């Protein structure tokens, strides 16, 4: 079953076509790798799916519902969450608070209702011992950061902030997780831990779209790989097929491949 589907998606920035007529599908339970040279439109595609940009043409369907023009926060409530290439954690808040801020209990309540509840049900969720603490602790254990729960997020090493962002995203109970370079800036050992984490998330039934530059990571983790080049899809298939696809090799090694002709 396609949990996420894009049809003829085009996004222009002035004269630049960042994403051109791209079709894609994400199967339920799948890990789909998204690769391509710098500027290929990978992050733009994630921005389109998560609602940070609106597509100029085409449509994006989540469980057959059109989400093309929805607001980011509403798309998240539907069940899609993303992380960022450069992490966007909350630096001055504690690790625990970072995760709690994403927990789903806020869904479908407006700010006034939240404020009212905050006043009438004291012993608040911020430092109290409510349900959300257990869930947050569980998520922090999963990414191996429980020991740092009271640390201010900005004091974490970089690799840990990436894991924290993933934990925060999981707090929103997504069915689809969009990961934008989750292992960038990591050493090989940290990358391996990150691969294990992503696999274990996938094992719990979360479908994953992952952008990654490290080939070793993408080839070992993806069930299927899609390649973008200058905003167009040039390949889509198993890691092995894509790896030996001449167009992909040319896209990556561009100049040299052409020089041989």
């Amino acid at each position, binding site marked *: 079953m396609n949990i996420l589907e894009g049809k003829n998606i085009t996004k222009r920035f002035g004269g630049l076509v960042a994403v051109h007529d791209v079709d894609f599908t994400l199967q339920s339970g799948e890990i789909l790798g998204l690769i391509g040279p710098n500027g290929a439109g990978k992050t733009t595609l994630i921005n389109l799916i998560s609602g940070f940009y609106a597509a100029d043409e085409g449509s994006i369907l989540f469980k057959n519902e059109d989400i093309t023009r929805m*607001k980011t*926060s509403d798309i998240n409530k539907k069940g899609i969450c993303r992380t960022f290439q450069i992490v966007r*954690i909350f630096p*001055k808040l504690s690790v625990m608070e970072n995760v709690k801020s994403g927990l789903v209990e806020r869904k479908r309540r407006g700010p006034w209702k939240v404020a009212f509840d905050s006043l009438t049900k*004291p012993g608040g969720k911020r430092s109290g011992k409510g349900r959300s603490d257990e869930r947050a602790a569980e998520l922090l254990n999963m990414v191996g950061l429980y020991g740092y729960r009271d640390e201010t997020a900005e004091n974490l090493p970089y690799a840990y902030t990436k894991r924290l962002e993933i934990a925060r995203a999981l707090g*929103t109970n997504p069915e689809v997780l969009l990961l934008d370079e989750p292992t960038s800036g990591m050493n090989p050992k940290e990358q391996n831990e990150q691969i294990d984490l992503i696999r274990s998330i996938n094992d719990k039934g979360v479908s994953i779209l992952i952008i990654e530059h490290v080939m070793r990571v993408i080839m070992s983790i993806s069930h299927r790989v899609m390649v973008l080049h200058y905003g167009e899809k040039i390949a889509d298939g198993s890691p092995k097929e894509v790896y030996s696809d001449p167009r992909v090799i040319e896209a990556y090694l561009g100049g040299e491949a052409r020089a041989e002709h």
Partner: protein
Amino acid sequence: MHSKVTKIILGTIGVVLLIAAPLVITDRYVQHIMVLSGVYVLLAVSWNLLTGFAGQLNLGHAAFFGIGAYASALISMHFHLSPWLGLLCGGLVASIFGGLLGIPSFRLSGPFLAITTIGFSEITRMVAMNWVGLTRGSLGLYGIPPLTPIKLGQGTSIEFTTEFSAYYVILALIFIIVYVVSTLHRSEFGLTVESLREDEMGAESIGINTSHYKLAVFMISAFIAGTAGAFYAHYERLISPNMLSTGVTFSIITMVMVGGIGTIWGPIIGAVVLTFLSEGLRFVEEAINLDIRMIIYGVVLALVILFMRQGLVGVLSGLGRFISRNPERQT
């Protein structure tokens, strides 16, 4: 447990001292400064809520103060509404304007929002100056009714025309508002609001409707400032467009910065310290016949930003940790 008991004891002593203060300090001028610092406490707390917690840089906070004051004064003068209800009306009218100013914040942030808020505040000042038919322009409104006496039956009643009784009114308002704001801050609402300040895109990505939250915080903040304005109008019984000036806004900002931005106690301490300091400087100014107050404010602000980012609260809690020799304890 030990620290909890200490907290309760210190809190009780604090409340008793605050209640007893005007009984001991009977000088009406000092009592007046105490009332005034209470008004600034509300303004500082509300600005801190919007800028310190939610990260929305508002450089036009005086507008809400002035709107609350004019609204309550005009309503009570023309429609003979009880000034007690006027406190509420001033807050409500200001919060409507707060909502209007909140709308541009959906798309603007940082310096762009700051310029918008300055513009808004200047517009309200210009309206107050030039709509003479309604506001009497730069002459200001005078003859604003005071808070009506509360009858205790049998010919006795509590009057609210003195500094002494006004002190208790503002103290009660501060207790209520600080309780509400600090409870909100400690709760899920506070966490969500702080996530806006920390990273708006990050907040939106985890399902926080940042626009709705900004609107709510703008309205709550403006409500508090408007209530402070309404109280001020019925206390001073004379208001002028001066209270809408950017100088008032910058005084509020300095108070919060000096006390400690993004904390509960910072704005309160900053407002009291600087209101008294400012009155003290008035005597110095008279003595040396030079207008140095704003210069000193500017220097203090610069020094705090350079060397004391966390303000007096940061210094005090650092001192507290040093004395108790317990670095693990959280503030």
